[in-house]
């Protein structure tokens, strides 16, 4: 199977791709190409997203709300709030956001591959009692990154269409997303492409280890749920701490 074939078949027939990965020698292009694609698509997405006036408006409104809360609580005068807001706007303009978004996309593209590879390797070792070849898990995680790339493109299109930062998740059902609401965060976590990627990772784990797909799916899903709950808990606790500090 050619590289293009592997990159495209991961959407329609991931099992075939991972069967070939298992038997074929290690190829760095299997993870490097998707990682680079993810970096480029992610960077482009950041540039396009932060060039949308509606998105910039939404971000400014969120920043303004923070200062308005301070003014209402009497911790800041109106003049101080305006001055601070002007400073924040100066140092967080669309260009800065594009650059930081692009840098973030590039870094996360590579980190994500090796992190998922490590997770698969540990899941195989601990729960499946199988010592997998780490490089094979890297290839697996790299190819599964194609799902993330598609998700990034769809997220970008949805954001441009709806005029607000959104994801292809259950949070689309909400009129007004509140980042301080744990339930809203949980709905946002149920991302179609994240779940798809979890399934593809499970396929890869099953094929590499020889375990049943259902068992592998249970493991990868379990890990995904645990990590999502962890991040939601961190967010809720952080909001609670800030609210108590007011």
């Amino acid at each position: 199977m050619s590289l293009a074939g592997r990159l495209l078949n991961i959407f329609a027939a991931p099992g075939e791709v991972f069967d070939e990965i298992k038997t074929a020698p290690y190829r760095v292009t299997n993870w490097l190409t998707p990682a680079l694609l993810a970096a480029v698509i992610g960077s482009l997405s950041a540039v396009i997203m932060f060039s949308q006036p509606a998105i910039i408006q939404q971000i400014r409104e969120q920043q303004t709300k923070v200062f308005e809360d301070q003014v209402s609580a009497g911790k800041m005068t109106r003049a101080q709030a305006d001055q601070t807001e002007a400073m924040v706007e100066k140092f967080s303009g669309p260009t800065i956001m594009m650059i930081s978004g692009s840098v973030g996309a590039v870094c996360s593209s590579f980190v994500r591959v090796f992190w998922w590879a490590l997770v698969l390797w540990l899941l195989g070792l601990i729960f499946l009692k199988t010592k997998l070849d780490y490089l094979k898990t890297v290839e697996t995680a790299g190819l599964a990154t194609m799902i993330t790339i598609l998700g990034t493109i769809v997220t970008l299109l949805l954001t441009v269409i709806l005029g607000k930062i959104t994801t292809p998740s259950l949070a689309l059902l909400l009129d007004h997303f509140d980042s301080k609401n744990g339930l809203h965060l949980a709905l946002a976590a149920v991302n179609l492409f994240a779940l798809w990627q979890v399934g593809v990772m499970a396929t890869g784990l099953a094929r590499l280890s020889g375990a049943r797909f259902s068992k592998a799916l249970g493991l990868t899903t379990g890990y995904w749920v645990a990590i999502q709950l962890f991040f939601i808990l961190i967010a809720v606790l952080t909001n609670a701490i800030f609210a108590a500090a007011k």
Partner: protein
Amino acid sequence: MAKPKKRRKIIIFSVIGLVLIALTLVAIFKKRQPVITVQTEKVLLHSLTNIVVANGKIQPVVQVTISPEVSGEIIELPVKEGQQVKKGDLLVKINPDVSIAAVNQVKAGYESSLAAKTSATANLEKAEADYRRNLELFNSKLLSESDYIGFKSAHDVARAQLDSANAQVNVAKAAVDSAEEELAKTTIVSPLDGTISKLNSQLGERVLGTVQNAGTEIMVISDLNQMEARVDIGEMDVVGIAPGQQARMEVDAFKDRKFAGVVTDVASSSKDSNLPRGYSSGSGQSQEATKFQVRIRFSEKEDFRPGMSVSADIETQYRTNVLTVPLASVTTRPPKPPKPVEKKTSSGTNAVKSSVTNIVSATNTVSTTNAVAADKKSKESSKPLDVVFVVEGDHVKVVPVKIGICDDNYWEITNGLAEGQEVVSGGYRAISRDLDDGKKIKKGPATPETAKKD
């Protein structure tokens, strides 16, 4: 087996491709406009009271500073600070020895002048008797004329001496009265019923009189039954203050209570206006705002002490059932510039182009000068307008308004709006910067400010 797999792949790729194409087309052709989140309220009728807030101190309406007219040592001080006194009560006695000696001295002078008057009277009687006797002799031609004139002159001199003695008596009497007056000034009694609000001097202290200098302020007597708040009002607000206006006051020492009062006096000049020209109070670097003192009489009696801090809300204007909008709804925007006049281009044949060009250039110079003058005038009159943003569906419209008075929450609208119209009342950034004519909006949750008000 391969065919179903191939078919599945085709279906999956087709679905993905279709979704991507559809989303891309929608993203390209959908009109995008930033949507600004705002809060809205309706234009309603309210009654408004314009209030000017000022801070100051409580002082008695009547307050008298007691200073002696004569200098000396205090030998009696039968009062103490905080004591209530009545009109005529003894306050201070200054050592009268010097005054007594002065009185005795002038009395002696007075006695002497009386004695001199008696002597002059006797001399006049003798001179008159001699004159009458010698007049008869002169009329009988038994006395020479020169002798007669001698006796007549002596009589006149005696009369003049008596007149002088009388004048001396009057002078001496006046001196006695003055000395006695000075002696009386060594005893100071209270000029009013009141309370010793401040006692500066002690028994045995030497005090200066007010004859040639300011004199020692021995004590201050205040009528604590009538107190007033003396507050400082800025020059922008003082024009709206007039005697008779109602006020409500809060005294720091009496928390959670409001006291009613009436404005009784508004200063005609500012607090700094009495300073000499070129004099600057303090370091001379800072410039304090110009303040005018306003006096507000308390309508109710309370245990106020002079110097207590007070904050007054003076009700300057009232409006009943007028159109109002929330304070945050009103902002300013520059007026829209007038449409530029289309420039007329010169046309003509090539033959007359040069002469026409000269005429046109001269005309352009004149019109340019006029345009500059007009532009200058328009710039001067392009002051920002007071506007509100009226909600029309999911857009806003800029509506210039005329505002009247305001209170803590609402502006009076005298022109530009009708009752029931919906106007944008928050957020602050949206109203002050982001919103403009035709911008798209969506109603968001109430801000903490509007939530508090509700």
